[in-house]
C-alpha cells in the first residue's frame, strides 16, 4: 500500500440557490461548470499540465442520468490522458475520495483529481409554509382593499432546508431528535452552537483563513468571492423548526440547527510519493485509508460512540483520542457535534469544542451534499498546516447508521 499525499485543493464559494433559475445560462452555473471552475483554479497552481493527470473522479448527488459527468469535465479540461469515473448518490463525495485513495494506494496511479459538485434542482416554487398560507389568504380576498392589505403583509423568501423531499427531511430530523433526547440536549445549547459556528466562520472570512476559494465570475458582470451566509437572523434563536408541523410544542430542534443545502463544488489533488518527488510538489497532508462503518439499528445511542469509524481509524494507527489535535465534524445537525462533545467529555479539546470545526462548519456555510465532505478535508489540512499540528480527523455520519472517518497527518516541514 503506497502512501497517499494530499497536495492541494480548491473550492467554489457555496451559494444559496441562484435566484436566476429561469435566466439565460450566463447568470448561473451548472454543476459541471462549478466543478470545472474549482478544478482549474486548483490546477493553475500546479507545475504540470492537465494531461498529466491519471484519473479524474467526480462525485455528485443528483445529476441527470445518462450523462457522464466526469467524462465531460475531463474533456473540457483536456485531462483525457487518464480515465474518468463518476459517483452518484448522497455519499458520492466520500466515495469518490475513497476510490481516488485506492487508485494511488493499490493501483499505482500517480496523480488523481477528486472533485465533488452539487447544484440544487430547479424548483418551480420555493416558498415555505408561511408563503403558501399567505397565498391561500390572498386568493380568498375579494375586494381591492383587502388585497392591498394582504400584500403589505407578505413574507420574505426563506432558504430551503437540507433535503428536498419531506421523507428525507423527517428522517434526519427524527434521527436528530432521538439523539437529542438521549443525550438530553436543550434548545439553548443548540442555538448557542449554531451561533458559535457562525462567529467562527465570520472570523475566518475576515482573516483570510478559508482554504483556497475560487472566485466565481458570471457573464453578466457579477462576481462572488465569499461564501454567502445562509443563516436567517430574523427568527429568534430558540424558535423551533417548522418541519414536523404537528407538535410545535414538542419540537426539540431549533430553527437553524439543520444545515441548509447550497450549491458548490470542491476539488482535491492526491498524489503518490513518486509524483511528489517528480514535480517537487509541496504537500499539505498525508491521508490515511478512509474508514467506514455501518450500524443500522443503533439502539444504544448513548453508550456507543457517535461515530464508530473513529475508533477503527485510531486503532489502525495506534493512536488515542488525546493525540488528535484538530477535528472536523460534519454539522448536518447541531445535535451531532453536541453529542460528540458529551461523549468525549474526558478529552478537553473536544469537550470544550476549542479544537472542533474552528473555521466554521456546515451550519453556517450551508453544504452542498457532496462537496461539503471534501471541503472539510481541505479546511482541516489548512488548519493543521497553519497551527503546525500533527494529526487531524474528519468525521461524518449519515442518518441510518453510516459513519466515516479519515485521519490526516501533517509533517512538520521535514523536507524543505
Amino acid at each position, binding site marked *: 500500500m503506497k502512501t497517499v499525499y494530499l497536495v492541494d485543493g480548491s473550492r467554489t464559494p457555496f451559494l444559496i440557490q441562484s435566484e436566476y433559475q429561469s435566466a439565460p445560462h450566463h447568470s448561473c452555473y451548472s454543476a459541471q461548470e462549478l466543478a*470545472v471552475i474549482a478544478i482549474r483554479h486548483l490546477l493553475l497552481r500546479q507545475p504540470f*499540465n492537465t494531461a498529466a493527470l491519471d484519473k479524474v473522479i467526480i462525485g455528485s448527488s443528483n445529476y441527470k442520468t445518462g450523462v457522464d459527468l466526469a467524462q465531460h469535465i475531463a474533456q473540457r479540461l483536456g485531462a483525457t490522458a487518464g480515465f474518468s469515473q463518476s459517483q452518484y448518490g448522497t455519499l458520492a463525495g466520500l466515495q469518490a475520495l475513497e476510490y481516488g485513495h485506492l487508485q494511488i494506494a493499490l493501483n499505482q496511479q500517480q496523480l488523481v483529481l477528486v472533485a465533488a459538485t452539487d447544484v440544487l434542482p430547479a424548483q418551480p416554487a420555493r416558498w415555505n409554509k408561511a408563503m403558501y398560507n399567505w397565498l391561500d389568504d390572498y386568493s380568498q380576498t375579494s375586494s381591492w382593499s383587502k388585497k392591498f392589505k394582504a400584500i403589505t403583509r407578505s413574507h420574505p423568501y426563506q432558504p430551503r432546508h437540507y433535503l428536498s423531499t419531506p421523507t428525507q427531511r423527517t428522517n434526519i430530523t427524527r434521527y436528530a431528535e432521538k439523539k437529542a433526547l438521549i443525550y438530553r440536549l436543550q434548545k439553548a445549547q443548540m442555538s448557542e452552537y449554531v451561533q458559535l459556528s457562525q462567529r467562527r466562520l465570520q472570523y475566518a472570512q475576515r482573516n483570510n483563513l478559508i482554504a483556497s476559494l475560487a472566485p466565481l465570475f458570471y*457573464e*453578466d*458582470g*457579477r462576481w462572488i468571492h465569499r461564501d454567502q451566509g445562509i443563516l436567517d437572523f430574523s427568527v429568534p434563536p430558540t424558535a423551533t423548526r417548522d418541519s414536523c408541523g404537528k407538535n410545535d410544542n414538542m419540537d426539540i430542534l431549533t430553527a437553524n440547527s439543520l444545515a441548509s443545502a447550497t450549491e458548490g463544488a470542491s476539488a482535491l489533488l492526491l498524489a503518490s510519493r513518486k509524483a511528489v518527488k517528480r514535480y517537487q510538489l509541496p504537500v499539505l497532508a498525508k491521508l490515511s485509508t478512509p474508514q467506514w462503518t455501518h450500524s443500522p439499528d443503533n439502539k444504544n445511542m448513548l453508550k456507543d460512540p457517535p461515530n464508530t469509524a473513529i475508533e477503527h481509524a485510531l486503532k489502525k494507527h495506534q493512536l488515542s483520542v488525546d493525540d488528535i489535535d484538530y477535528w472536523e465534524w460534519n454539522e448536518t445537525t447541531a445535535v451531532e457535534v453536541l453529542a460528540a462533545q458529551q461523549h468525549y467529555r474526558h478529552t478537553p479539546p473536544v469537550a470544550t469544542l476549542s479544537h472542533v470545526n474552528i473555521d466554521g462548519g456546515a451550519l453556517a456555510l450551508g453544504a452542498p451534499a457532496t462537496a461539503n465532505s471534501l471541503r472539510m478535508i481541505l479546511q482541516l489540512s489548512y488548519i493543521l498546516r497553519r497551527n503546525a499540528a500533527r494529526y487531524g480527523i474528519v468525521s461524518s455520519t449519515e442518518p441510518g447508521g453510516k459513519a466515516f472517518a479519515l485521519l490526516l497527518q501533517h509533517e512538520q516541514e521535514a523536507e524543505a
Partner: protein
Amino acid sequence: MNQLQHFSLQKTADDLIWLTIHIKESPRHPVDTSVLYEFLEIIASIHEKKVKGLIIQSNSPEAFLTGIQPETLTKLADRTSTQHAMGFFSLGNKLCRQIEKLNCPTVAIIDGLCSGAGLEIALACQYRVLTDRPETRLIYTEIAQGYHIGFGSITRLIDLQGMKTALSFLASSKPCPGQLCVRQGLGDKLVARYKARQQAEQIIAHIYDAGTACKDNNTNRLLAHTDKNPAPFSLDKLLPDFLISNIRLPQDHNQPLSSLQRQVLETIIGTWKTYGNSDDAKQEEVTTATRLLVAESTQHALYLQVLLDKQRQKRITRSQPEKQQPPLRVHIMGSGTIGRYLGRLCAFHGLLVSVYDIRHNALARLLPEARHYFETRAPYATERVQHALDHLIPDIENNGLRHADIIIEAIQEDKHSKASLLLEIDRGSRPEACILTTTACLPLNELSKDMLRPERLTGINLSHPFIDSPIAEVIQSDNSLSFPHDKVTDFIWRIGRLPVMVQNAPGFLSTRILMAYLREALMLHQAGTSITEIDTAASALGMTFAPFLLLDTIGLDECLTVMEALADRLGYDVPPILVQKVEQGHGGKNAGEGFYKYKQGRQQADLISAFRPSFSKKTDSRDIQKNLLEAIINEARIGLNLGIIESTEWVDLITVTNIGFPAAKGGALRYLSGKT
C-alpha cells in the same frame, strides 16, 4: 485521356462518377490554368458517356478549392496586357458553363475552405453538401481586394439567393459557416463528415427515384419529388423590373464598405441591371472581371495582399506543424482594455490564459466581453467557444505567475508601477519564461534596469481591440540580443498575428503614426473646421477609421495619456481641445459622450446643430484630406528614416492595417511614390 495530375476519376458500379481533387502544389488547392485545363478535359469526356451523376470531392481536409495563388495573380494582373487575365477568366467561365450543361446531376461535397475561384466552380454544380466541421466555410475573399473572378457564378449566386442576400454575402469579410450557408441557400445539406458521401449518393438516388424526376422551371435543375424547393422563398427573388433601380448596397454601421468592395458590388449590380440572369450576364462577367482586375486600386490592394501572404508563408515553412505544439500557459497581469483583449485572443487560439488584476470589477468585465468576441468570431462553433471560455481564467490571487510560460504585463502606462511590477515578475516566475510588456512608449532599458535577468524582456504592441489589426510589433531591449526570441514570435504566430521587429523608439511605428493622424485632425478642428466635415472628408478619402469616431471609440482619456507620453519624447504639443474634453468629463463612447453623443453604444445624430447656423470655417474637403494624408505620410517617412522599421513594404502594411489608410491607394509610401 492524358495522365491527370490534379484529379482522379473513379466510376462506380451504379454509373456514378467520383471526381477527387488533389492539387499537388498545396493542400489548400489553389486554382491554376493547368487545373482548369484538366477539369475541362474531364468534363468533356463525361459529356459523351451515359452517366447517372457526378460527385466532386476534395482529398484535403483543409480546403475544397480556393482562389488563385499570389504568383499567378501577379502575372494575371499585369496592366500592360489584359490577355492573361481575359484568357484565364474565359477558361474558367467555359468550365462552369460545361458543368452546368451536363445532363446528369452534379453534387459538390465541400469539406474545408471554399473560396474565390473554387466557390464559383462549386456554385456551378447543382447541389452542394457541406460538412459540419468549423473549418468548412464559404467566403469570397476577392471582393475585399476589389475584383471578382469572372467564371459566371455570381449570376448563379444571385439567381439562387436573391440580390439582397447575395450582396450581403459577397460584402461580408467574415467566412460564412456551414449552418448559415444552408439557411441562406448556398448549401443544400449539412452533414457530418463521415456521412457526406452517403448523402451525395442519396441526393442523386432520389432524383431517379421511381422515374418521377421533375424539372424546376426556374433553374433548369432536376429536382427529386421529395425535395422541397431548395432555396428558401424570398420576396426579392421575384424582383420585378421597377425594383431593380432601387437596389442598394448593404449597409453595416460597424464596418462600412471600403471603396474596393463598393466598386465590385456596383459593377455586379450594373451587370444585373443590363443583362438580368441570362447567359449573356455570365459571359459579361469575364469582361467586368478583367476590367476590375487591372484597375489601379485593385493593383494596390493586390500588392498588399501579396506582401501579407509572403510573410505568412515564412511561418509555414519554418515552424512545426500545429498539432505538435506543446500547450502554452500565458499569464496576463492587468485586466484593462489591452489585458482583456490579449486574454481573449490567447483563449480563442487554444492557449491556457490566466488574467490577473487586483480589482474585482475589472475582472468581472472579462467574461462578458470574451463571450461576445468568441460568438461573433466563431458563430455556431459552440465547442470552440466553450473551450475558449474554459481556458480563460480570471485570477484574483496571481496564482498563474509561478508556472506560466509567457507572462504579459498590461497595466497603466506609468514608469514606476511598470518597473516594480516587472521586478515582481522577475522574481516570481520560472527562469525559462518569456516576459512581454505592452508599453506604448517607455524605453525598455529603463524598465528593466533592476531586473536580475533583463534579457527576458520584450515589448509587444498590438493595436487597440477596435482596430484589431493582424500585425503585432515586437521590440527588444538592447541587451536581449542573446536571448532567443523565437518563443515570442512563435507565441505571436499562435495567436494569429504577424510579428514584425521594430526598433526601440517611443510609440513604435503604428502608435506614432496614429497619434500624428489624430493630432492633425484635432488641430484642424481647433482651427475651426467642424467635426462632421473632417470625418466625412476622411471617409471620402477612403480611410477605414474616421478620426473623431476612432478617438471616441478608443477613449479620450487613453488617447490623452498616450499623446502626453509621446509628446514629451517626440517634442510636440498635445492639442488643447483634447485636454479640455477630458477635463469636461467627456470620456468617449463608454462615457456616453465624447466628440459625438452616444446612447447605448450608438451614435446619436446631431439634428439640432444641423439646423443651427454653423460658425465653423468652410474648408474645402480636399484641403482636409491633403492635411491628413500629409501628416500620415510625413510620420511614416520619419519612421523609415530613423530606421524604426526595416522596409517600405512593412510601412505600407502597417499604415493600412493599423491606421486605416485606404488599401485602394496601396500604403502610405507607395501612394507617395505614385504621386511623385
